[in-house]
């Protein structure tokens, strides 16, 4: 599986993401700078976590208008897998590639801790390696992860199965509506999530729960 990770000014998890992808897929991802106007021919494009442009204006807002984002939009429309984690999720909502918005955490504080996630839709490449309803551990680290969508949008994405992951076991760290931690587009090839699966892929990090997401993307496993 070929993948590319896009780096923006202020990204800080791009190397973690590249290490995780290489570990699970066996192939080092390509690195793409935000000023590029085209993407290499890949199966997966990742927008990593960080604080692009210092979160100025709104988290992810400036990065979402970068030159490379037109290429990301084009790739998504062709069915290429697009994953946005943390700041990458914020960019995808700001770019209109995913519904809703990420607002300031309800508790107003930066949260850096481990949460539990429940996989509630396993029809996408990102979620197919999980079992239905599987609860897994995942770290979060963000200040603006409070997912919001208006009532109509919320009803639509819940009804269409676009909610991929929810915070489980009372671990919602940011006040997200319906405990939503990850959202898919209607086609299921674009996923945005606040938690960092790339930071729980080897025992030295305290667990390997995050690997399952990348295994699904790579088509390595098919859970029953």
């Amino acid at each position, binding site marked *: 599986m070929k993948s590319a990770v896009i780096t923006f000014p202020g990204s800080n998890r791009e190397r973690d993401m590249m290490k995780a992808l290489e570990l699970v897929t066996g192939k080092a991802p390509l690195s793409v700078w935000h000023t590029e106007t085209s993407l290499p021919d890949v199966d997966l494009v990742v927008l990593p976590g960080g604080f692009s442009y210092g979160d100025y204006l709104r988290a992810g*807002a400036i990065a979402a208008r970068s030159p490379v984002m037109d290429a990301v939009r084009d790739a998504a429309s062709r069915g290429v897998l697009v994953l946005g984690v943390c700041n990458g999720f914020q960019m995808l909502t700001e770019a209109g590639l995913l519904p809703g918005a990420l607002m300031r955490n309800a508790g107003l504080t930066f949260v850096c801790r481990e949460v539990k996630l429940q996989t509630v839709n396993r029809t996408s490449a990102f979620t197919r390696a999980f079992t239905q309803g599987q609860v897994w551990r995942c770290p979060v680290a963000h200040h603006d992860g409070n997912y919001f969508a208006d009532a109509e949008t919320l009803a639509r994405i819940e009804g269409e199965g676009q909610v991929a992951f929810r915070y489980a076991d009372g671990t919602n760290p940011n006040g997200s509506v319906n405990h939503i931690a990850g959202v898919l587009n209607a086609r299921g090839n674009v996923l945005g999530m606040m938690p960092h699966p790339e930071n729980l892929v080897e025992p030295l990090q305290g667990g390997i729960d995050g690997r399952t997401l990348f295994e699904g993307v790579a088509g390595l496993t098919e859970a029953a």
Partner: protein
Amino acid sequence: MKARVTVTLKNGVLDPQGKAIEGGLAALGFAGVGHVRQGKVFDIELSGRSAEQARADLAEMCEKLLANTVIENYAIEIV
């Protein structure tokens, strides 16, 4: 020409920062303060266009960048 764009959260969108400010005002002893909503103000200098064109351009700027219309409203003022 100078313009002022005000961006505010839509009704129904929770504003934890506004809530915290509300609590801060209460802690300072200001009585009779109701809900506080936090927003943003942009002062923008524009040249080479009519006021009418400026309004149209500013609306496009709001739609494309200054506001996230999923959660925010905007108001344009030529000052």
